[in-house]
């Protein structure tokens, strides 16, 4: 028995190796794109929504014949909502799968863990929804199709001060999260400059489940609102515990709140609160309604802002590929060829095409990338009333 097993081993190894090689082998005339995201973990809806958005766009492109006959294939990796796993996932996409471009992540900390890998390998990366400014500063191959946190922080400060007429804020930030710390700082600066006061600035860590100690301190300072620039799981729990402690002021936050689980977690605790989103799903604009209808039909869910940005990120990449095909057919062909210097040069050209994106008609607004590879575009404010969202205002940059 033992002898048989030993003699079988080389054969099994060869078979496995063959399967690996064949599994990765590129099919003729196919462009392989990598995607990494949090399909599981504390921000699972971020990754799932983004994946659905990307999948919807890519399948539409392929159904219409692909980009000039070349089909797009997306390889998706789960990073379990952890920055270190994001780096592992992108290493695999770049080294083993040989992708020519990468889409992801939502969370800025995870985009920042993966961006240096893409930059080093010369693989363009487009983050659909990481808003921390530092993400695209990591290199000229790193792009985003969303607005950035200085804009978002300014907008929340102005909304609180002018629209709601509140001048005493408490900030409750996630200390382990680049997005949260950045947004908290931009908000505080802007709110100060407008003459508002930050009466309390407390911190928690992603994954915490008890916030009562900090909320007790905050309550004693009597703020008029609570600015929580965190992610939806913690925001929902914070809202509930704030109400339990008798802290009844509205909560304000950024696009980290965007998730269809937010209200399931918070229940009634977020009524009267406001947050920033990338688009409004009931916008009558026909392009948005077409996207919402298709998405609903396929996933049986209303697309949130992150699904819309995933859709747009795939759109910006596809449009760059298409322009490359028209301008430099040889380079375009090299993208579906073997991984060599020729392909590397082609990826550099693809990078240039993404950088020159102008007025791309996305569902989250017209996308033009500026010199810092950021999108400049409007945002919307949503309010929460009786466990439902309502449109409050659209803000131009």
């Amino acid at each position: 028995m033992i002898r048989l097993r030993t003699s079988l081993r080389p054969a099994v190894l060869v078979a496995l190796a063959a399967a690996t090689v064949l599994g990765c082998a590129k099919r003729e005339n196919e462009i392989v794109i990598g995607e990494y995201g949090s399909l599981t973990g504390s921000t699972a809806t971020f990754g799932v929504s983004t994946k659905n958005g990307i999948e919807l766009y890519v399948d539409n492109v392929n159904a219409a014949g692909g980009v000039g006959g070349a089909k797009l294939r997306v390889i998706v990796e789960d990073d379990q909502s952890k920055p270190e796993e994001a780096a592992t996932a992108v290493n695999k996409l770049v080294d083993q799968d040989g992708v020519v471009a990468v889409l992801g992540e939502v969370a800025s900390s995870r985009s920042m863990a993966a961006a240096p890998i893409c930059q080093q390998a010369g693989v363009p990366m487009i983050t659909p929804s990481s808003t921390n400014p530092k993400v695209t500063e990591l290199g000229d191959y790193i792009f985003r199709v969303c607005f950035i946190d200085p804009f978002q922080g300014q907008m929340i400060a102005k909304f609180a001060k002018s629209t709601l007429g509140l001048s005493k804020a408490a900030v409750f930030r996630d200390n382990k999260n680049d997005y949260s710390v950045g947004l908290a700082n931009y908000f505080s600066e802007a709110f100060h400059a407008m003459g508002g006061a930050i009466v309390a600035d407390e911190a928690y860590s992603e994954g915490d489940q008890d916030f009562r100690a900090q909320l007790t301190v905050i309550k004693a300072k009597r703020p008029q609102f609570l600015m929580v620039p965190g992610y939806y799981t913690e925001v929902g729990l914070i809202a509930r515990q704030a109400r339990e402690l008798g802290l009844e002021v509205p909560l304000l936050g950024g696009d980290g709140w965007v998730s269809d689980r937010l209200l399931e977690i918070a229940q009634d605790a977020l009524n009267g609160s406001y947050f920033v989103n990338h688009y409004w799903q009931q916008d009558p604009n026909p392009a948005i309604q077409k996207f919402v209808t298709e998405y609903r039909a396929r996933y049986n869910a209303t697309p949130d802002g992150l699904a819309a940005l995933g859709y747009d990120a795939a759109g910006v990449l596809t449009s760059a590929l298409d322009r490359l095909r028209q301008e430099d057919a040889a380079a375009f062909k090299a993208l579906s060829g073997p991984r060599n210097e020729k392909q590397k040069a082609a990826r550099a050209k693809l990078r240039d095409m993404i950088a020159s994106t102008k007025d791309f008609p996305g569902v989250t607004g017209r996308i033009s990338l500026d010199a810092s590879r950021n999108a400049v575009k409007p945002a919307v404010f949503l309010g929460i009333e009786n466990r439902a969202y309502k449109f409050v205002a659209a803000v131009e940059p």
Partner: protein
Amino acid sequence: MQELFQQLANGIAWGSIYALIALGYTMVYGILRLINFAHGDVYMVGAFTAYYLALWTGAGGANASPFTALLVLLGAMLVCAALGIVIELFAYRPVRRSSRLTALITAIGVSLFLENVGLRVFGADPKFFPQLIAPRRVELPGGVLVTNHQITVVVVSILLMIALTLFVQRTRTGKAMRAVSFNRDAASLMGIPVNRIITITFAIGSALAAAAGVLVGLTNPKIEPLMGIMPGIKAFVAAVLGGIGSIPGAVIGGLLMGVSEYLVVGYISSTYRDGIAFVILILVLLIKPAGLLGRNVAEKV
């Protein structure tokens, strides 16, 4: 002042959870001289069992009632008692006569096993506990606001601790447990069924951890497969602080841990929330290694 009382009230509710988990550590240590590192994960399994029990039976939400909550609690305790017995039978009994280090490493192995099976079976996404009892705010004297959930946690913990103390002090099995803890070989010679006593100890300890898991789901509804790691470590520190092997020590240690955590977060910084546990551990080991209520026992050489 009101702020301080509020922190203390929340700290006591939180500390009751640690106390319940610490009881399991201390009982197993008292009997086997084994630190059962898988105990925090049994607490996690308890929370998930209650979650699924509530889903299947439709308890919680609109059907919230203290009676169904009690059924869910008992169900989770039963399942985890069985889990504790299985763990003891398959993981610890085979290495009982080996060195203590072997048993310790086995415990870490069981802990990792439960965590990863949890990730596989329950998934990495956090789940949100249904509200088994309709939430209500209660104002205590001094303007301190707590929820009926927090009061439930404290009351159920106290009841379980009283029940455990009565069991250990007043029943024949309890007496046998004390005898085994005092000297296993002598107890065996006196005709005490040592194996059965150890099994019962694991069952009770695991049931208490399950109770802690259900109670935490009530006040802090987010549950996930790795939720047992930190509370497990902190409850272990609580058991050491109180004097490992001592049942009242575990309760006092747990309450002190909960309160100190709230005071540190409230008055110093949330960054030290987990750090405080280890500062306490180091201080106890330096100043009073036997813990607050522990006895100094000379090692036989």
